[in-house]
């Protein structure tokens, strides 16, 4: 970056700079150079001393770290807000009144359980440099994770910031699955399943895609370079496909589909979905891991995709069922946000709009026609939105990823490498398909095995009486609404 920037400068400036700095060009950032050149032009050559340059350099780096850290801490908080209250309200409104608290609790408890697991071992298994499939134990109990940056992942922010940011992803991913078995799973079995699921599916998948040396990590030496900016495979495919396995394994809710199971509060779901949309800026733009132009680009792509996906779903529903519904609008927004997640830091705004539009229509088709045809009871459509939208987004990332947006990948001669099909690299679509396939297989095989274990140890479903009474009272001893 340094040399590139300098080569753009007029020769006279370069000579001046070279002379002033005693020829110490290496390691000087472009910002330093400009600052320095300005000082020189202003007639302050007194600063033209190596030690002063180092102090300017240090001050500039400190300023960049402060900016990046501010955005990353904000992003971490935004992603936590997606689980509670965002997802908890979105899912809570979609269930029947008697299960609203149990459903919110399934999301909320992840904020506690996965946090503990992440601190003890999760962060290390995901981001320790292990083998192609899983990290090692170098960060066990967060040892060595402090204020010094980890240059492999994010060189300008404390590793603790990176760690807490990634934790928020580990929290929301299992929470997404809960939509599939809503209104019928035992709380104890759910806790055990989610701990095992994080250990055997999420941490390995996060390592494969984002960890140093991971099989699919395009930027840190993966053998199958797969682009997943913010978690299309890691978060949405693993959770969505596991959700389908859960729905099939647990079976339908009592009375499904003959009795009414209308969402009990569209208002709660609406608030939740809007919080998800806002939180997603932390999720996707935060995945730039700094307050950079790339973060802006991901922010823009995210927003545009959500907009067109909303319109896609609403229009499809309007044509098919005669009325444009609120639930259609918010479901479409979430579908678009899911689909743009892997692509956010790789695509321009117009392809982002296309990805969103396709996702809105595709997910509408999945949760209406496909779900009804096969008859599985994915209560809140975790598969139809996250599994389907995540898969579509991951594949389309291979089509639309361009080095005009993300020049992080270099070819042998140090120039930005072509990324997706639009850059002339058609093979990336197959890399993406391979990444998708690995995520699907891991989710299906892993979830099936873990459900079997939980079923044998604790039993997965509540009794029929408990289910009919409602999980709020039967599992938690509380009611959602007491109005006197």
């Amino acid at each position, binding site marked *: 970056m340094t040399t590139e920037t300098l080569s753009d400068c007029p020769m006279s400036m370069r000579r001046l700079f070279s002379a002033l700095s005693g020829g110490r060009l290496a390691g000087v950032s472009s910002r330093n150079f400009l600052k320095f050149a300005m000082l020189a032009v202003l007639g302050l050559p007194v600063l033209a001393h190596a030690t002063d340059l180092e102090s300017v350099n240090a001050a500039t780096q400190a300023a960049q770290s402060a900016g990046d850290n501010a955005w990353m801490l904000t992003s971490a908080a935004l992603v936590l807000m997606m689980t509670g209250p965002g997802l908890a309200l979105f899912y809570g409104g979609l269930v029947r009144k008697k299960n609203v608290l149990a459903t919110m609790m399934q999301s909320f408890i992840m904020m506690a359980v996965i946090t503990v697991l992440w601190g003890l071992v999760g962060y290390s298994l995901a981001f320790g440099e292990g083998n192609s499939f899983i990290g090692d134990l170098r960060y066990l109990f967060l040892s060595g994770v402090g204020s010094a940056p980890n240059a492999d992942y994010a060189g300008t922010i404390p590793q603790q910031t990176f760690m807490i940011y990634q934790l928020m992803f580990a929290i929301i991913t299992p929470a997404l699955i809960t939509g599939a078995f809503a209104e019928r799973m035992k709380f104890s079995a759910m806790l055990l399943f989610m701990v095992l699921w994080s250990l055997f599916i999420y941490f390995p998948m996060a390592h494969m895609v984002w960890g140093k040396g991971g099989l699919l990590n395009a930027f840190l030496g993966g053998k199958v370079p797969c682009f997943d900016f913010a978690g299309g495979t890691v978060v949405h495919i693993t959770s969505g496909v596991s959700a389908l396995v859960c729905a099939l394994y647990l079976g339908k809710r009592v009375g499904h589909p003959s009795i009414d199971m209308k969402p009990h509060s569209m208002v709660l779901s609406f608030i939740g979905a809007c919080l998800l949309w806002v939180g997603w800026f932390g999720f996707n733009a935060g995945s730039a891991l700094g307050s950079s132009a790339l973060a802006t680009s991901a922010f823009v792509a995210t927003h545009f995709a959500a907009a067109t996906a909303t319109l896609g779903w609403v229009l499809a529903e309007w044509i098919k069922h005669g009325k444009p*519904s609120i639930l259609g609008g918010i479901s479409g927004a979430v579908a678009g946000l899911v689909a743009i997640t892997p692509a956010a830091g790789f695509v321009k705004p117009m392809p982002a709009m296309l990805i969103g539009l396709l996702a809105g229509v595709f997910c509408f088709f999945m949760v209406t*026609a496909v779900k*009804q045809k096969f008859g599985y009871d994915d209560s809140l459509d975790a598969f139809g939105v996250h599994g389907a939208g995540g898969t579509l987004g991951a594949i389309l990332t291979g089509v639309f990823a361009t080095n005009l947006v993300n020049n992080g990948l270099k070819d042998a001669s140090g120039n930005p490498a072509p990324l997706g099909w639009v850059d002339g690299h058609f093979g990336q679509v197959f890399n993406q398909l391979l990444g998708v396939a690995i995520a699907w297989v891991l989710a299906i095989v892993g979830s099936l095995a873990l459900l079997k274990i939980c079923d044998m140890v604790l039993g997965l479903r509540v009794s029929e009486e408990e289910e009919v009474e409602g999980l709020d009272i039967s599992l938690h001893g509380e009611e959602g609404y007491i109005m006197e």
Partner: protein
Amino acid sequence: MIKVEAIVRPSQLEAVKTALIDVGVDGMTISDVRGHGRQKGHTEVYRGREYTVDLLPKNKIELVLRDDQVEEAVNAILKAAATGKIGDGKIFLSKVDDAIRIRNQERGVAAL
């Protein structure tokens, strides 16, 4: 004494209440009820799943009046509750044997 029970649309409740007060009715009981007559409910669609809602929300107004008040009150309800479409509701009239004011045990018309 006559008991008037009127089932009306929730959208007309305020108008009916005002109309009754205007003709001198000074006590009423109102409750939220669900039901259907000839109006056959509606269909709701959530993510492609259709639900038929056949019990619709209505309001029930209960009044107990002196015989000479009834005609005026009924006319007030008819005027305020009607929209002309199916689902406007019904009015039922029935004789009341006695009434007792709990505070001082007054009986009959004096208790109204």
